[in-house]
């Protein structure tokens, strides 16, 4: 039976904890701004594109990491530019992403037909993550990418929040809102690529929305919300990884989602009770 002390002396577990914390921190940070901008659908779109991009890279013999970054960053920036021209192209977006996901399954069966035995494992890793079996190269990639996202968010934070909450006034103050929006999309894409590699495409939306949603219910300051969101996201991932490490059958993704979602649930119930008591 696994004990806590043997868990914390395991190299795999410590790497999983490091990568998981970093990925959840950037998801919490970027997620807060995504929720404030009402652009969470981008995250959902990215989880589709990530699957196809990674499998396309795998099919042509490139690293899935490259496929993830190119597809996610390209898609996030593309959606941003498209949304500027046609803000209500819902049906076009829906159709496109269904088609892209279909393309992904085609790539999957193609690489299986070409005799590549690892294609099944690769697609499972992309969908559900591979926190406990992450390669050294991927760890380096995640650490570098994660620090880029954190650094950029710290520099862009204030004007980004200003242009998100109060766009016309920000424009009049000379803030380049379109440039900021495009840069932020690039960061969302990079975050998605890093997160998919470690926690999986299916967990991406959860990690971007649940901690941010809970944090924004707890405070009226967007900057405090960013900090709280990071704390909730890291807490869920660390807690989830420990639970998964101790249990022989709970995968990390399941434990992490459960923790993040229940945090959101508890906060939502508590704030609505408090709201009713104050008569709102």
């Amino acid at each position, binding site marked *: 039976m696994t004990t806590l002390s043997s868990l914390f002396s395991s190299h795999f577990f410590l790497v999983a904890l490091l990568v998981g914390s970093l990925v959840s921190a950037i998801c919490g940070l970027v997620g807060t701004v995504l929720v*404030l901008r009402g652009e969470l659908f981008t995250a959902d779109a990215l989880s589709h594109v990530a699957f196809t991009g990674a499998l396309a890279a795998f099919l042509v013999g490139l690293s899935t990491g490259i496929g993830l970054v190119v597809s996610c960053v390209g898609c996030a920036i593309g959606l941003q530019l498209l949304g500027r021209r046609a803000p209500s192209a819902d049906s076009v977006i829906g159709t496109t992403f269904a088609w892209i996901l279909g393309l992904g399954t085609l790539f999957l069966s193609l690489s299986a037909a070409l005799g590549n035995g690892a294609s099944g494992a690769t697609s499972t890793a992309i969908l559900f993550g591979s926190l406990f079996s992450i390669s050294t190269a991927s760890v380096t990639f995640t650490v570098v990418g994660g620090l880029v996202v954190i650094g950029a*968010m*710290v*520099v*862009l*934070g*204030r*004007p980004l*929040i*200003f242009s998100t*909450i*109060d766009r*016309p*006034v*920000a*424009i*009049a*103050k*000379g*803030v380049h809102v379109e440039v900021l929006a495009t840069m932020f999309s690039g960061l969302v894409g990079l975050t998605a690529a890093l997160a998919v590699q470690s926690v999986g495409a299916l967990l991406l939306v959860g990690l971007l929305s649940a901690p941010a949603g809970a944090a*924004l*219910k707890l*405070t*009226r*300051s*967007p*900057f*405090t*919300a*960013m*900090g709280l969101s990071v704390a909730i996201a890291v807490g869920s991932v660390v807690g989830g990884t420990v639970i998964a490490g101790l249990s022989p059958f709970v995968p990390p993704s399941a434990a992490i989602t459960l923790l993040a979602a229940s945090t959101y649930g508890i906060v939502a119930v508590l704030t609505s009770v408090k709201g009713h008591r104050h008569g*709102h």
Partner: protein
Amino acid sequence: MTKEPLKRPALTWTNAAVELGERTIFSHVSLEIDVGSFVAVLGPNGVGKSTLVKTALGLLGLAHGTVTVFGDRPEIARPSVGYLPQRHHFDAGVRISGRDLVRLGLDGDRWGMPLPFATKFSARARAAEAQVDAVLEQVSATAYANRSIGECSGGEQQRLLIAQALVRRPRLLILDEPLDSLDLPNQAAVAELIATICKEREVTVLLVAHDVNPILAHLDQVIYLAHGGALAGTPREVITSENLSQLYDTPVDVLTTSTGRLVVVGQPDAHGGHGGHHH
């Protein structure tokens, strides 16, 4: 009120014209606004009132002519201008306190992120907070400044937005329909507040309105935009039954009350004209 002869007007338009696509919004507009005066931009819907003020903010370029703000190009004068955009209100779900919104008006365009507990160790952060406190006090919004902006009433939001426009101590305040969507007592109160700021702080105010009555008593100058051109002067010169009937293409009466106030009656879009009003 007599004014010292001033070296430079706050705002000038010289032979200005704006074209959007193929359409000429207005042309041959030449205007001059004195420092410290309270000026209203009036006129029928869709005539280009918001367009005119946007040229002063440097948000829209002129097809012909020039516009200056304190003698400079609008882009250069930007730090001395406070702005409240048209139809600017926040949905109930917007999660930011009024105080934080005002603070964004002070330093929201600066790179970086505010540090937690900054007021504990940074004199600059304390000075910024003091500036926000002072402007909230000035517009009497202190009581609800910590509430979510989305939970504030229309009048409260408007006061907070005026505070946001004022927080950098601008020399020119551009307000696009700040009285729109307010009830009558709030219209009078906000108009009074703007007039006080104008007179006590020597802030030049350029205010777009579609109903002149709530602000008429406070105005130094009015600009009527209509039919591609502009008519400007003191309220008594410009606001006459003859001028307004011609501008609006419908009979409009200007009455003088027993206390000597002007009242405009019959202006087509002054009341309840909230639909179909797009620029």
